[in-house]
């Protein structure tokens, strides 16, 4: 048997069904690869013992079923972003302030995954409270991108905030990983690591048990090696949850069945506002390439305008910090996590939160507090909410004439660790193409489409109207097939081990 870490979810599913491999073997291979990948710092917590147990239980269920129906992810080992609460297992959100926190509950999404038969390899590293685009804000240290520039052993960022999840999938030690996307935190790291990352429609996946960053924007989704794997995994994650008031009652279609390979007659919008000054030529070229592929496949390309695109990032940097400043108020040293004593209650709060939050979280909590404070609410927060409506309206108008939109996923390839960490705004610009879909609540997916001239992966993004992930996947599948992206990072982290 070939290296079990080199096959995808769909392939493993078939081999498991035929009895050619067991979940125990598949899981063991991934646990071993996870252990060997410590130089990437992609995991906060590894759970090999639990993985082994879950895999054995999965194999037992499968033999019990005797060729009958099993879960959609029966026996598939996955990594879980450490933003999802997992019963009895350390959950840190990448922050010092959740020091030692072991929730007594399981997030709805992970619960659904285990019910679908999946196996947990461990919890992945992330930007602190999912605030970041490079995974450098984690209390557990940065994640190293499995990809490096050829002949250059500098470490690159994997993107963020789901950098650990993206690295685990790209580095072939998890078959898939959960992730979350508030402003691009699934799609941008997917683009930086040559993986497929989907942010579904707001409300598709329950937020219950997922540590909140910005409640009106947060949405969970999968990072996988292929579009098909992604569709399979989202199918297991999505669905109405009565415990989340913003969870949607829309039916969950069979996403995998949407991968017909046929985009003939679909109208694909190309927004002129996504052409940025100073954008690397190779990004522009890749985009043109994607347009060409879709045209060749019979889709119709339509030039569109999303006039308020430019204002999405500044609006986002009001709304997300405002919500975060409130969502993070519960980290106060009283009921869980870190506590740093003080002479009175106020000092205890201030000491705890000063020690517990890193620089980026502090920055955003302060901005969020400021824009909600007396005298500034209208000028900032309310203004941003109005702009949010305009941005959403832009998309609705566009979707009157097109079925989906094609854009680059990120304005550059992965950059070096430390390269942008001194300049918050240049860091924020990473999400320029992804943030608008969060503001509008629409689904988006990043598909690896090519390599930069330095040999780093680049992604294309497909956006679609709310609850039309099927069209999004269909187009993504066609792009994936056309791109034929088969490159893999060299497993440099294993050398010497």
């Amino acid at each position, binding site marked *: 048997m070939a290296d079990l870490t080199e096959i995808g979810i769909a392939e493993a599913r078939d081999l498991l069904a035929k009895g050619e491999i067991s979940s125990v073997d598949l899981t063991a291979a991934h646990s071993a690869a996870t252990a060997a990948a410590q130089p990437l710092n992609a995991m906060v917590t590894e759970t090999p013992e639990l993985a082994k147990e879950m895999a054995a239980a999965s194999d037992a269920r499968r033999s019990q079923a005797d060729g009958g129906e099993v879960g959609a992810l029966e026996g598939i080992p996955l990594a879980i972003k450490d933003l999802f609460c997992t019963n009895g297992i350390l959950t840190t959100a990448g922050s010092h302030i959740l020091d*030692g*926190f*072991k*929730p*007594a*509950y399981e997030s709805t999404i992970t619960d659904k995954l285990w019910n679908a038969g999946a196996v947990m390899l461990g919890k992945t590293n992330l930007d602190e409270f999912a605030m970041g685009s490079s995974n450098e804000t984690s209390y557990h240290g940065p994640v190293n991108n499995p990809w490096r520039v050829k002949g250059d052993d500098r470490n690159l960022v994997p993107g963020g905030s789901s950098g650990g999840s993206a690295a685990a999938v790209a580095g072939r030690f998890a078959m898939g990983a959960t992730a979350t996307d508030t402003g691009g935190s699934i799609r941008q790291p997917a683009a930086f690591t040559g993986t497929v990352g989907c942010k579904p429609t*707001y*409300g598709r996946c329950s937020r219950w048990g997922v540590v909140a960053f910005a409640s*009106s924007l947060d949405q969970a989704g999968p990072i996988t090696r292929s579009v098909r794997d992604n569709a399979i995994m989202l199918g297991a994650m999505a669905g109405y949850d009565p415990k989340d*008031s*913003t969870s*949607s*009652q829309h039916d969950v279609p069979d996403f995998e069945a949407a991968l017909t390979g046929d985009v003939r007659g679909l109208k694909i919008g190309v927004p002129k506002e996504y052409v940025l000054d100073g954008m690397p030529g190779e990004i522009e070229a890749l985009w043109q390439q994607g347009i060409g592929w879709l045209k060749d496949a019979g889709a119709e390309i339509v030039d569109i305008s999303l006039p*308020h695109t*430019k*204002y999405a990032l*500044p609006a986002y*940097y*009001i709304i997300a910090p405002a919500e975060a400043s409130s969502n993070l*108020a519960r980290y106060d*040293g*009283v*009921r*869980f*996590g*870190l*506590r740093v004593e003080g*002479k*009175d*209650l*106020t*000092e*205890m*709060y*201030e*000491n705890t*939160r*000063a020690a517990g*939050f890193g620089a980026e979280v*502090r*920055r955003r*909590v*302060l*901005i969020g*507090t*400021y824009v909600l*404070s007396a005298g500034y609410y209208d*000028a900032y927060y309310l*203004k*941003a909410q*109005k*702009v*949010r*409506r*305009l941005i959403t309206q832009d998309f609705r108008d566009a979707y009157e004439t097109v079925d989906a939109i094609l854009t680059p996923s990120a304005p550059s390839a992965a950059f070096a660790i430390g390269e942008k960490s001194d300049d*918050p*705004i240049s860091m924020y610009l990473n999400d320029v193409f992804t943030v608008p879909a969060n*503001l*509008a*609540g629409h689904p988006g997916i990043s598909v690896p489409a090519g390599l930069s001239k330095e040999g780093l992966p680049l992604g294309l993004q497909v956006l679609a109207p709310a609850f039309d992930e099927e069209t999004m996947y269909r187009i993504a599948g066609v792009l994936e097939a056309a791109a034929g992206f088969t490159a893999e990072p060299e497993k440099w982290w294993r050398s010497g081990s």
Partner: protein
Amino acid sequence: MSVDKATVARIAHLARIGVGEDELEPLASELSGILNWIEQLNEVDTDAVPPMASVHDEALRWRADVINDGGKQADVVANAPDGDQNNDGAFFTVPKVIE
């Protein structure tokens, strides 16, 4: 809008994050930079635009008035960094508050 040291101190206190005196100045310039960048929103005419708090357009769902939670005292206080789990019951504790 640029913020000064006093404003940073005020919002840091509102957010209950201890910020050292020496950090106020750099934070003030950092936050001012971000706020200045954000203020490009003022270019947009939003006079006739209602604010949008949520993209979700389904109605708020209501739960039945049924007791189906609670009774998990041990889980509730399990992660408490400081507490009193004596036989009077399990409490969280904080430094004494004078009302």
